[in-house]
């Protein structure tokens, strides 16, 4: 019998470890990534002619970054690696890709989706002004291009990455005007019991905070964002502290993020059932402890399945690969699977801690003023979404999308989806889970008009 064809989508921590595990078993997986280099988000590589060291790029994670890059580079001849290739649809057991304007349809026996995450955003007045960036974007500017997004930057939002990226900026010599966290410090205290399962990570968080304070950076917790101010460009930020006082701080750039959201479109197009995650208020593909979805042959791993961070992504990638091989009738080591499952449980507990410590600010989003733009792509305001929900009676997200166009733009709801659902739930007086989610649409990202017709494999 010929070897089964297994495709891994994503060459971040989850995808790399999945591919490695398949190669160890004597298979030759196809690895697809839209990016030009492997590494994913956390271990994103700099262009070849850059010279910064691993230590300066990845800090505490330098050894892990080196190990992951080394592992994938070592697989060069053992995998069919296709960088610069977007996976844009799954229909049946066929994955559709496009690379350099050429589309391909690839049949598979199993697909492991390790598609990672993007920033989760909340709309704030003025957030479309030039100079406001997603938090992850601000890190990419620094890590992959050795640039700051401005000369004086405010970091606003919540989540562990807020402190990490602010610290990285300060260390690189960019002035950090403030770190403004919507989560109160009391939430972090409440989460301690879960966070201590990863003491090293807990300690890092405290270290970044202490380093920022030592550099006299303003760090505020429990704030309410009011506005990103500016005429044609970011000039400052207005916010309210917990004591009700309003503040204004000058800056020429803002990095914003409220933790992460999974890239789940391919799982959705493949027909995987989704579940609502109460802890984060997000939908994600339903999976068992090993990464099997409700769709035979489709596996999910890493932040694209559930946002658990890079170490968990490596573990989940390996586990999903073992599950896929087991389902294809190969013998796998049960003891190893058990060991990996045990690790995943600890990562999950930490995740629960993070969700408690840095909650998505649902209340703030629901109160966003009518004139605030929610959909950046097509400039649709909170007021328009509310009007659609009331006057036109849209009961759930896809109806609201059809009637107001929110989520229909070129980002396909990646940056407005969370907020639009909150606003709709509030107006309709329903639970968030009842207003549903935006369905994935192919292509998962816009294709060039000149894409050449498909070649089948």
């Amino acid at each position: 019998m010929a070897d089964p064809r297994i495709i891994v989508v994503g060459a971040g921590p989850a995808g790399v470890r999945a591919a490695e595990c398949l190669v160890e078993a004597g298979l030759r997986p196809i690895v697809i990534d839209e990016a030009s280099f492997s590494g994913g988000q956390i271990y994103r590589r700099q262009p070849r002619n850059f010279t910064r060291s691993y230590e300066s790029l990845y800090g505490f994670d330098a050894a892990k970054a080196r190990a992951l890059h080394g592992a994938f580079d070592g697989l060069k001849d053992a995998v069919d690696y296709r960088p610069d290739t977007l996976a844009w649809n799954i229909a049946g057991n066929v994955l559709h890709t496009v690379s350099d304007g050429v589309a391909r349809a690839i049949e598979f026996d199993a697909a492991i989706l390790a598609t990672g995450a993007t920033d989760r955003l909340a709309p704030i007045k003025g957030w479309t002004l030039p100079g406001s960036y997603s938090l992850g974007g601000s890190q990419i500017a620094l890590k992959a291009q050795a640039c700051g997004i401005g000369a004086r930057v405010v970091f606003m939002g919540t989540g562990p990455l807020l402190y990490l990226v602010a610290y990285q900026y300060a260390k690189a010599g960019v002035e950090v005007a403030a770190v403004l966290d919507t989560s109160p410090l009391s939430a972090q205290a409440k989460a301690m019991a879960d966070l201590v399962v990863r003491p090293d990570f807990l300690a890092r968080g405290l270290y970044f905070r202490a380093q920022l304070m030592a550099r006299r950076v303003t760090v505020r917790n429990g704030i309410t964002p009011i506005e990103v101010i500016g005429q044609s460009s970011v000039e400052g930020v207005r916010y309210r502290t917990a004591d009700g006082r309003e503040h204004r701080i000058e800056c020429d750039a803002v990095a914003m993020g409220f933790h992460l959201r999974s890239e789940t479109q391919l799982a959705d197009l493949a027909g995987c059932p989704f579940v609502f995650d109460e802890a984060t208020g997000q939908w994600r593909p339903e999976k068992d402890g090993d990464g099997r979805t409700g769709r035979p042959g489709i596996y999910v791993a890493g932040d694209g399945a559930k946002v658990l961070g890079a170490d968990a992504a490596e573990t989940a990638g390996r586990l999903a690969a073992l599950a896929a091989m087991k389902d294809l009738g190969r013998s796998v080591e049960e003891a190893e699977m058990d060991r990996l499952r045990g690790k995943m449980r600890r990562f999950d507990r930490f995740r629960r801690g993070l969700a408690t410590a840095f909650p998505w600010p649902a209340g703030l989003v629901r109160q966003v003023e009518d004139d605030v733009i929610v959909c950046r792509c097509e400039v649709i305001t909170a007021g328009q979404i509310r009007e659609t929900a009331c006057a036109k009676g849209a009961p759930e997200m896809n109806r609201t999308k059809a009637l107001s166009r929110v989520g229909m733009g070129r980002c396909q709801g990646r940056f407005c989806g969370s907020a639009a659902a909150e606003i709709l739930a509030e107006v309709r007086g329903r639970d968030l889970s009842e207003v549903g989610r935006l369905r994935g649409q192919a292509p998962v990202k816009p294709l060039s008009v000149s894409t050449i017709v498909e070649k089948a494999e």
Partner: protein
Amino acid sequence: MQTARFKRVSEQDRNPIRLLIDGQVVKALDGDSLLVAVLTSGPVLRQSEFGDGSRAGFCLMGACQDCWMWTADGQRIRACTTPAREGMSVLTQPPSEALWPIPA
């Protein structure tokens, strides 16, 4: 000249390159993305098609599509994931109205 938005913090010893943005020569460094090449020499990338002003990209990871630029023959390019190259010529607006809107 308008002020640059992005500030380089290191890695400035790379080979210089030149590209044309709306016909104007812009200096950049080999290894820059198109977005970085544009934003290290000016404040914005493009105009929003919906009349709410200029945009300068947002996510930098190929997800938001808020950094589209165009080649002279109407090819749409995503500035954050496109490497800047010597002699490249790009436009901040689509060359022909007929090409817009392009369905997602």
